[in-house]
């Protein structure tokens, strides 16, 4: 590498942030999803992810295009609509050492993908599952999605009368151990949440309100930048102490709850809303529903519970990745076949 006067910052692996970028985004200029991509790049850099150990998975839709825009040195898989959860489950079974990053959208996950979303959480598949939530189908030019609020309108005036599905309270009901909501216009909070999610084991769900500048950013939309800014109510000031540097100062001042994450990192939460307890999923869920009734958008860590069994625990699998097992382990010998045949005679 050529010497430069001001050295580019590197992480513990000696990689620069540039090593975590992907190809140029083809989304609309100003799209909320691009802000999320930036935070994924930053978090992956700070968390020292080995790019070749990351699997980037997605379904179909604008959000699902984004894995092309980060971590060019990671394997990406833009699969079928709503069903990246199953692809991720398969990849996790084949190679348990992969770090799975899944980018989905509200259209992808909350309609055709609902069944797989639910069962992925039930199995606690290790994955950072990001829903880039804009309340609208962008790629097909602006139809309502299942997370659209009652009373929100399309560009040409149609009003949504159906109640929205909330991926976060649903995930909490299902026992997901890491549930967070953020806003693409709040990069600081999103960055901490992403790092904490990467330090988590099991399914970590992050629902990110991510305005669609083309089809759902108008005055009467409830998923516009303006609406989100006006109604966002962060629950906590979040701090993150990474596993590799327990002295690093990234902790908000004041009384804070600490959560020890499985990789040795610590998440600190200084409550802004004192009555909100993210370790009590039922009470928290009630708070979220009530806030929604009031038109408030609660963001931050909605629920956290470490230590649940993951897919790999349930499967009682060997520690070596399945994909790396040699023939000598996976192909039983002739004596085994002979014994099987003898039983059938």
């Amino acid at each position, binding site marked *: 590498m050529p010497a430069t006067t001001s050295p580019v910052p590197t992480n513990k692996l000696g990689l620069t942030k540039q090593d975590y970028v992907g190809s140029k985004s083809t989304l609309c200029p100003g799209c909320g999803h691009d802000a999320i991509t930036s935070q994924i790049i930053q978090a992956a850099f700070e968390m020292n992810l*080995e*790019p*070749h*150990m990351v*699997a980037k*998975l997605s379904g179909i839709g604008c959000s699902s295009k984004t*894995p*092309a825009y980060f971590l*060019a*040195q*990671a*394997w*990406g*898989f*833009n*699969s*079928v609509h709503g*069903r990246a*959860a*199953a*692809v*991720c*489950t*398969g*990849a*996790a*079974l*084949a*190679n348990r*050492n*992969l770090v799975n990053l899944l980018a989905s959208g509200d259209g992808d996950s909350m309609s055709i993908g609902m*069944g*797989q979303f*639910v*069962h992925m959480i039930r199995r606690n598949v290790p994955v950072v599952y990001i829903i880039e939530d804009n309340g609208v189908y962008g790629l097909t030019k602006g139809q309502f999605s299942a997370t659209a609020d009652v009373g929100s309108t399309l560009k040409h005036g149609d009003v949504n009368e159906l109640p929205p599905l909330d991926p976060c309270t649903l995930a909490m009901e299902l026992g997901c151990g890491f549930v967070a909501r953020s806003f693409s216009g709040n990069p600081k909070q999103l960055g901490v949440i992403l790092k904490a999610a990467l330090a988590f084991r099991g399914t970590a769900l992050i629902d990110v309100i991510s305005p669609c500048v083309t089809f759902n950013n108008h005055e009467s939309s409830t998923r516009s930048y303006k609406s989100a800014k006006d109604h966002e109510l962060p629950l906590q000031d979040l701090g993150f102490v990474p596993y590799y540097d327990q002295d690093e100062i990234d902790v908000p001042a004041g009384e804070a709850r600490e959560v020890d994450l499985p990789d040795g990192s610590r998440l600190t939460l200084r409550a802004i809303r004192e009555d909100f307890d993210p370790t009590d999923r039922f009470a928290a869920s009630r708070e979220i529903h009530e806030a929604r009734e009031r038109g408030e958008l609660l963001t931050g860590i909605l629920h956290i519970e470490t230590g649940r069994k993951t897919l790999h625990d349930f*499967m*009682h*699998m*060997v*520690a070596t*990745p*399945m*994909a*790396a*097992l040699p*023939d000598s*382990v*996976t*192909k*039983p010998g*002739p004596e*085994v*076949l*002979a014994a*099987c*045949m003898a039983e*059938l*005679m």
Partner: protein
Amino acid sequence: MLTHADPSKTVESRSRVNDFSIEVATVNGSGSQTANIVLMRTIFQMGVPVTGKNLFPSNIAGLPTWFQIRASHRGYQARKQEIDFMICMNPETAKEDVAKVGPGTVLVYDEPLKLDGLRSDLVFCPVPFQRLVAASCPEPKLQKLVKNMVYVGVAAQMLDLDLDEVRIAIGKQLHGKQKAIELNQTAVQAGYDWAAAEAPRTEGLKVVRDHLTDGQIIIDGNSACALGAMFAGVTVVAWYPITPSSSVVETLIDYAKDHRKDPATGESTLAIIQMEDEIASAGVVVGAGWAGARSMTATSGPGISLMSEFIGLAYFAEIPGVFIDVTRVGPSTGLPTRTSQGDTGICARASHGDTLHICLYPGTMEECFQFSYLAFDLTERFQTPVFVVSDLDLGMQNWASRPFAYPEGPLDRGKVLDAEALAAIQDWGRYQDVDGDGIPYRTLPGTPGGRGAYFTRGSGHNGHALYSERPEDYRNLVDRLKAKFMTAKAFVPKPVVSGTGSPRGILAYGSSDPAVAEARDILREVHGKDSDYLRVRALPFTDEVIDFIRAREVVYVVEQNRDAQMAALIRDFHPELGTRLRPVLHYDSTAIPAQTIVDQINAAEK
């Protein structure tokens, strides 16, 4: 000791020694399966080739079910329509059962049914089951199960079966559970003793010990497929239960407990996951195949319909995965517990758009094993979904077979580049055809070195796996996929051909094989018609298939579906051969018998 020097004589003679079929009519859920398999096994152990077919309802308990056992010293394994020995245990169907058999059939039945008034041309054998059961089994709870063993005893005596062999078969079936074995043996003895004193004589309808099954096994095709997958080193299995395929994975689970565990830790070297549906199962197969596992699923037609979207993705993005389809009767729910070859078409082309899949068509138990093994080598070599197209008749019925030979040699993991290989390559493109065989090189997630990563997508892409909507990129891609598919011709099993150069050709595949073999004998021995026979074992068709058709004016294509799906596939690839093909079709949801093939060929040649 029976001698059968001249087989053709045996066919013509009326002797039914070692050549007859038994049908047992019972109620589903009554526990008759054990009794029927004991009967079948006993004949097998006496050295006489035998097959067992369970014609069962889509129901847990209460609906009628029939079990057919065919003994054939000539080794015929197809379903036989004529019944020589009928056991009527189901009052609901007794009248129909009596009506359907031919004159001279022996009819064993429960005395109170009073079936002897229905016809005068049968050999009636009313058995006082209740009295015999009560005497041999004091526990009322068990009497229903034991009742079935009484008919085993009656049949054993009437058919001259060796009681010692019956005892061995019971022991095998009940896995050494001593109390149950004794109870069942007592019931068999009660039936046997009663028959010795009271049953009508049936001269010529009996089993005489032979040695034709020495060294053979009895197995069902689903178990054979499970074994094939296990020995192929399958590492990820995702499935959703569906009749008639469920026992593929259930059997694999059982075998894996014994043979796929790390001896030190007890942890599994095979991940078997029951998913929420077939769509998710296919998703796991694709995700695991992409990440380097040997992955598979087993399903039936409705599952293939649901999986088709992922199958299309795997085809287009070139991801390995094995799909075992145990065909039932469709469309829709169809007849879930009956057999057909109605998935031939969908397996060849599952997905929207232009797709072609490598399909293997096992026709024997050995092939269920071998092809399930081979499918994993092919799917990784060709980086595309591979189908093992079985059916209910192969998959769930009991077949005698030679023991399986161990598949020697290393597993073929295909063109996979590791870090070292990548470092030596200047310009690697995931979808570039550098060898001219249509097969590109792939890498697996997790490969270090920084050069192997690529982006997999179901949308248009170029040789470097970059998104592309350019017309030439799309066309190049699908043309290469077709070329890759045709390369597989040199890797898939060649057809099995027999005959002596007759202008009359018969082409079949899969479970139709036993019926064709028998039909050819009948055509030659009874109708004086020679025929040559080719059994297709794979798609793409190898040159032998095409040459066989080209060399003959008429080729009868035998299939168990309405639309002559295999003939349509042949026509798709070789339209010029279309006029030579004559469909011979059987699609009433039962396994194809030989006579229908004979009748249709004779009708066509009138």
